[in-house]
């Protein structure tokens, strides 16, 4: 550039442009990164002396031209202004306003929330790159752009600092800092790269520099220098436009906005710094940060470069001290939506209210409450979330796919299924609460009731209502006279008639000699006991029940204590349909026992039953077998073996029919294997 006068003039112009570019960049960055302290001593012209002072210092050995070289001076000025403007833009969007009370009216206009267009006066520096910015903070001067050489990179660090009065143990602060790097900060802050304090972190680093090493496209020297300057200025203008948009897209701007809009002193503050000594980031830090590099602007003897390293702060806003907009929680405990009673109105309460109340007394969570829980508050309270709302959205843990209906699951596994699908916070006792529904559903599945003759040793729950009594007698005749198939039908009838009673009584195990598949339900047994005491119909297994359990201890706990060694405790909820079946079978067996024999082979049927029970339920039906044996011992001698075998065959057929109907229930206590 020293070789010819024309090249000298071009070089000078380029230098001037570069100088102004630097100055403008610095101006832009500082404007949006420096707190406003006082506007009284600050005027728009204060930048001019800086520029004047620095214009003579800006030139380095290569760019040192005579001041008469207008083009060079222009270039120099452009570069300087570019630096200043860049700094102004960055600082303007990174320096929260500390207090608006000390600000002059001019500064109030230039608050972040106000429009820049409200101010009609055009300051000299606004004309640079045709970008009128808000009033630059007084601290902008302190960066002393004039001392800088264009060759020195302009670095602006945006630091998030915890306020001094905050304690180190503040969870909010820790949380915020943790979100930056995924770890808590300790006393050793060497890894922060320039931050000496314990509670500081660089969240952005802007670098504006003039690279004069590369001379691009010498073939374009033919174009006039003025044209080159115009192109350079135009490109610098475009770059600064991009910078202005970019600073508002980066995560740090959200913090800036929150600090400005919070209206209260935050635990943190955003402090832009222009370090004199630049500590480079560690590799790990740099790996954690994102980088965006603006396309360099070519000058005559170099190029203007700008880049930014920034951290993603997607979690920061959630931990910030900015006030969170209220969210509506619709499924709070005790709310109408969460009221368990609300869902029970659809269930028949003639027999069910006591047990349901008992459910509620025992558990505050219920399946119905789970089902009735509302969608996440984020939807209910803010269909169009605002900035702060979007950050405060809370996901309702209960708002998930509803568990399958209890009756859709095989009865034997209902308890297990509930345990899998229900989440503890929502419904820890959902399996228990789902029992009433299962009872209700059981009503529509009469086929579950097996033939009582095959299952007399099973635990049977009595249907103590009078309805059942009448139906029992009504169904006895067909059972006695017609045959095994009819008896099955009679059982179904019995089940249907006594379903309301089954609703109450299911789930209660009267005998400890149950098959492992018969499950026990704690809460339901309690309800059964409530009805049991009022029962006017003697339980067919009163004897056995008395023998097995103590009536006074006929409580859920006692059943458990009796224990049921054969019974896994987790299958309690699946016992409801079986208990109802047991009740029906027990009732039928009782009727059969007490009914007067129509023919001699009635006793044979008892013997058959006895044989079957002994064979298939060695442990469970011992008591029943004993009673049967005693009653039929006398008639045994009068009956031939063939008749007995024929009777056995008929009952086997009946059994097979009933088994085929009850194959759906995998835990059917009456599922027996063929001998």
């Amino acid at each position, binding site marked *: 550039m020293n070789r010819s006068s024309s090249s000298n003039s071009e070089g000078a112009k380029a230098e001037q442009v570069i100088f102004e570019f630097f100055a403008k960049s610095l101006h832009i960055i500082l404007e949006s990164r420096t707190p406003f302290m006082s506007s009284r001593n600050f005027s728009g012209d204060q930048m001019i002396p800086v520029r004047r002072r620095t214009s003579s210092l800006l030139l380095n050995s290569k760019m040192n031209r005579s001041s008469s070289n207008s083009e060079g001076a222009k270039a120099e000025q452009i570069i300087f202004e570019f630096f200043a403007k860049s700094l102004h833009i960055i600082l303007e969007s990174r320096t929260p306003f500390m207090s608006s009370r000390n600000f002059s009216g001019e500064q109030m206009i230039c608050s972040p929330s106000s429009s820049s267009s409200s101010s009609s006066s055009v300051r000299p520096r606004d004309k640079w790159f*045709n970008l009128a910015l808000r009033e630059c903070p007084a601290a902008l001067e302190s960066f002393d752009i004039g001392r800088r050489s264009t060759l020195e990179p302009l670095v602006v660090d945006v630091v998030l600092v915890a306020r001094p009065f905050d304690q180190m143990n503040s969870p909010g602060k820790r949380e915020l800092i943790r979100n930056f790097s995924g770890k808590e900060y300790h006393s050793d802050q060497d890894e922060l790269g320039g931050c000496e304090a314990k509670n500081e972190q660089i969240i952005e680093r802007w670098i504006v520099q003039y690279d004069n090493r590369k001379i691009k496209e010498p073939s374009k020297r033919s174009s006039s220098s003025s044209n080159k300057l115009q192109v350079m200025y135009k490109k610098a203008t475009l770059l600064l*436009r991009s910078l202005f948009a970019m600073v508002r897209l980066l995560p740090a701007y959200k913090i800036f906005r929150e600090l400005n809009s919070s209206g209260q002193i935050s635990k943190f503050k955003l402090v832009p710094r222009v370090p004199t000594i630049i500590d480079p980031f560690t590799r790990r830090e740099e790996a954690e940060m994102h980088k965006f590099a603006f396309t360099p602007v070519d000058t005559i003897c170099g190029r203007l470069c700008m880049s930014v390293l920034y951290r993603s702060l997607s979690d920061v806003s959630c931990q910030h001290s900015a006030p969170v907009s209220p969210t509506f929680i619709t499924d709070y405990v005790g709310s109408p939506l969460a009221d368990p009673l609300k869902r029970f109105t659809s269930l028949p309460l003639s027999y069910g209210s006591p047990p349901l109340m008992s459910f509620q007394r025992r558990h505050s969570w219920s399946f119905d409450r789970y089902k009735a829980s509302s969608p996440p508050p*984020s939807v209910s309270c803010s269909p169009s979330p605002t900035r702060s709302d979007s950050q405060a959205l809370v996901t309702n843990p209960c708002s998930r796919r509803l568990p399958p209906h209890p009756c859709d699951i095989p009865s034997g596994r209902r308890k297990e299924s509930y345990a899998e699908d229900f989440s503890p916070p929502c419904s820890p006792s959902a399996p228990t609460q789902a029992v009433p529904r299962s009872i209700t559903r059981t009503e529509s599945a009469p086929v579950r009731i097996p033939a009582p003759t095959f299952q007399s040793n099973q635990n049977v729950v009595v249907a103590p209502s009078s309805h059942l009594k009448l139906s029992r007698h009504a169904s006895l005749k067909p059972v006695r006279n017609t045959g095994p198939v009819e008896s099955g039908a009679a059982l179904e009838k019995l089940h249907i008639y006594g379903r309301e009673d089954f609703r109450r009584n299911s789930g209660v195990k009267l005998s400890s000699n149950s098959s492992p598949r018969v499950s026990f339900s704690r809460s339901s047994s309690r309800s059964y006991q409530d009805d049991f005491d009022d029962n006017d119909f003697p339980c067919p297994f009163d004897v056995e029940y008395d023998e097995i359990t103590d009536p006074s201890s006929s409580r859920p706990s006692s059943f458990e204590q009796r224990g049921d060694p054969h019974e896994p405790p987790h299958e309690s909820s699946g016992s409801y349909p079986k208990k109802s079946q047991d009740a029906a079978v027990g009732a039928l067996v009782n009727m059969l026992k007490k009914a007067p024999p129509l023919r001699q082979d009635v006793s044979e049927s008892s013997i058959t039953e006895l044989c079957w029970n002994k064979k298939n339920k060695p442990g469970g039906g011992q008591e029943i077998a004993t009673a049967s044996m005693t009653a039929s011992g006398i008639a045994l001698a009068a009956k031939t073996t063939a008749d007995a075998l024929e009777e056995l065959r008929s009952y086997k057929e009946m059994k097979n029919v009933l088994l085929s109907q009850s194959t759906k229930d995998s835990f059917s206590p009456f599922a027996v294997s063929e001998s």
Partner: protein
Amino acid sequence: MNCEVCHLKELEVESFEIREVLRCILHTIIFHRALGLIRPKDIDLELFDITYVQCGEIEVEKKIDETIEHFISWIEKHPNKKSQISLSFYEVKSKQPSWFNNKQRSYWEQWYVNLNVLHQTKSPSHHSKLVMDTGEASEERNSRRTMLEQSLQEVLFQIIKFVNEKKDHVPPINDGVIYCPFEITMPSSSDSTFGRDIWKRMLHSGGHPSMLS
């Protein structure tokens, strides 16, 4: 001068989001092409956590709002359709007055904003209905909104990158001109956009071959 073309990433929006999304994108582009003395305005979107910049010129704001309103009315007539809005910058040259027009437009940049407007089954006004929705629908809505916000940010980054990478084709800054003249076209259908734009350019520019690049 070459005509640079930029196709922005397609965005899936609902009808009530069109206004904000289009304002954000169009204003951002025009701000980068408003090379005269301006006082930029920061605008915070209501539906998204995004702040974009307007050049601050009322005429620009009016023109954009009118275009958006026309677009919305067109969308209502053509639901569930992918649509494209073209924002073109041109220079007015009056060197060769043609039979069609005294002034010729020389297009030097074209932006294509691609939108896929989803059919909205539930409007935000049915707030009570939203409350009773299952958790799945609300979670899906929130995730879709989040995705759209990220996509919109990507589009804004895309604009900034394009503006940075390509500067040579931008005409010089003229004194007194605040923003480069532009036009926003809203095609009747996505298929006819290209043909109509070419026809318009031919009418205005006189058929300069570089316009077709």
